[in-house]
């Protein structure tokens, strides 16, 4: 039943969260592996960002003039220079809205 499936999905998700935290000991992580793990944010988040910007709701590529592309570039530039999270998100959203609602 579907209630059972929520619990199984929940346990599975919890397992993805606790397994590495409880199983890995420091000795298991070599210097090389630690270097590679440094890249985790840089590999996971772009895997969410790129499809979120470049694809539409149906999974097809958007055109270069899509408001999401404009918003993402604005956020990247503002974020790069200000290093401010709020400004990054707000500038990205507002430039996206400007393209949608003004043009």
């Amino acid at each position, binding site marked *: 039943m579907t209630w059972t499936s929520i619990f199984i999905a929940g346990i599975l998700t919890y397992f993805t969260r606790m397994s590495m935290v409880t199983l890995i000991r420091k000795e298991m992580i070599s210097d090389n592996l630690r270097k590679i793990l440094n890249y985790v944010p840089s590999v996971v*988040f772009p895997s969410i960002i790129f499809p979120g910007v470049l694809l539409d709701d149906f999974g097809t590529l958007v055109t270069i003039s899509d408001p999401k592309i404009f918003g993402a570039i604005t956020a990247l530039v503002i974020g790069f220079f200000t290093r401010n999270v709020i400004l990054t998100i707000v500038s*990205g959203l507002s430039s996206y809205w400007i393209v949608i609602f003004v043009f």
Partner: protein
Amino acid sequence: MRSKYEIFKIGIKDVAPHLLSVFPFGIIFGAIGIELGFSPLFTYATSLIIFGGASQIVFLQLLSGGASSLIAIASVGVINSRHFLYGAVLSEYLQKLSLIKKLFISYFIVDQGFAVSNQYFKKNPTGEFNHYHLIGSGIILWFIWQVSTIMGIYLGSIVPEELGLKFAIPLTFIAIIVNELRKLDHVFVMIISGLAATFFYNAPFKTYIIISPLIGLFTAMIINKFKK
């Protein structure tokens, strides 16, 4: 040295800007659950029991679309498998904690919390109470996610679809990684992972979410070989 409570508050403060996108996303999720025909309790239960934004949407969409429970569960597992990577990174900093504390903290490991707390750990590698940062960032994210889900369930689509607030999710992640753009190797790895994700997006069970990071890590490995 900072006290537990101080570090807990820093955790909340560091993740606070990301609530800007988590909050509307929660409302959107709650509204989607009801729109798809699920009961308020069932919709909310996914936020409490699964507690993983995108995976909850996919879970409900698949169930309502008539997919088997097995497929819905498998998709949740695949989407959330990125937590294995977060756990591996965090394990080093949480190593000294008792098993009970590890099990408690694990429930709160989510994208934004992992990102900001990992940055804090890197800057303060020796702090004894560092894990309170992760508890702070995790608990506030959890709280806002629960509240916004309930708001979405009962207020419905108070967030107009035309606003396209789903777009806040990639933006919050852009804000997380934008500092790494100062390192050329990271930029390269990001582009490879991102393009791989776009390319494999339509692969079954949302497997792109774990295939592409692995391709990225493999790329990082190769880069590090050549750096020596």
